[in-house]
């Protein structure tokens, strides 16, 4: 039998050990599960129901997050471009392309 053990420190409670797998008679397990199958669904769904506009709200939040991410990427790109441009400008003015120290003043 495949017994996975998922213990989370600090979360004591029922099910911490899987000893009960063989403790409960198979037929009794199936019978009791079937008998209690409809018992909790409505109450728990009621307890955990989201607001009506969850999908729209989630879409808005995700859109905002993705826009922020993309703005950040764009800003980083711009910064990188700015540095490169600045370097280019400095290079052009500092050292003539042909290596002539006098540059284009000899025209």
């Amino acid at each position, binding site marked *: 039998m495949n017994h*996975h053990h998922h213990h*989370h420190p600090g979360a004591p*409670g029922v099910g911490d050990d899987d000893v009960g797998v063989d403790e409960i008679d198979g037929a009794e397990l199936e019978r009791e599960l079937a008998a209690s199958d409809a018992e909790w669904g409505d109450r*728990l769904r009621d307890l955990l129901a*989201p607001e009506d506009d969850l999908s729209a709200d989630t879409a808005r939040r*995700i*859109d905002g997050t993705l826009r922020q991410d993309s703005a950040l990427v764009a800003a980083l790109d711009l910064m990188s471009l700015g540095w490169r441009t600045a370097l280019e400008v400095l290079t052009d003015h500092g050292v003539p392309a042909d290596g002539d120290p006098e540059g284009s003043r000899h025209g």
Partner: protein
Amino acid sequence: MFPLRPRRDTAAQPALDRQLGALVEEHSQAVYQLAYGILHDRGLAEDVVQETMIKAWRSLGGFRGDSSVRTWVLRIAHHTAIDVLRRRRDAAVAPADLPETEGARSDDPQARAAARAQVVALREALGTLDDTSRSVVLLREVEGLSYQQIADTLELSVPVVKTRLLRARRRLQQAVEGREGDENDTHDDGDEP
């Protein structure tokens, strides 16, 4: 292929990527309920929904189709919520975060109090379960997943899922009955002259 339906475009929703929009439309409620059941905090549950959707969307290329998209998304949600829970294990639950059930909106103060007590009892009972058992209960009772789907989602065996579910139901029953017993005792005491 993914059984994703095209997203409904509404004025209220921004134009997300089509697949991301479909994920949100199809699965956000299930993810929210699982996350809220684990975390007991609406704001954190909404964060988990967002994080899960983005993670799933970014990993769609690696989805092999071995399980259903729902099972796969819920597995991501479970791990994400458990991670958040571990970080916030000791955070207090604000009473104002309790949902309004039908009874809680009643005009009758006693009915409101009783409904509120039931919500509190159920939440406390959920809180007595370990993380995995709580997820088993939520996936079965709220999402209606089969035992096999729950086993796939939580990476457990089917017998373990069944046993945990049964023990969790017993625990919930005991906790709620105990709470109701306490409530009745309190009311009986209050009726004494």
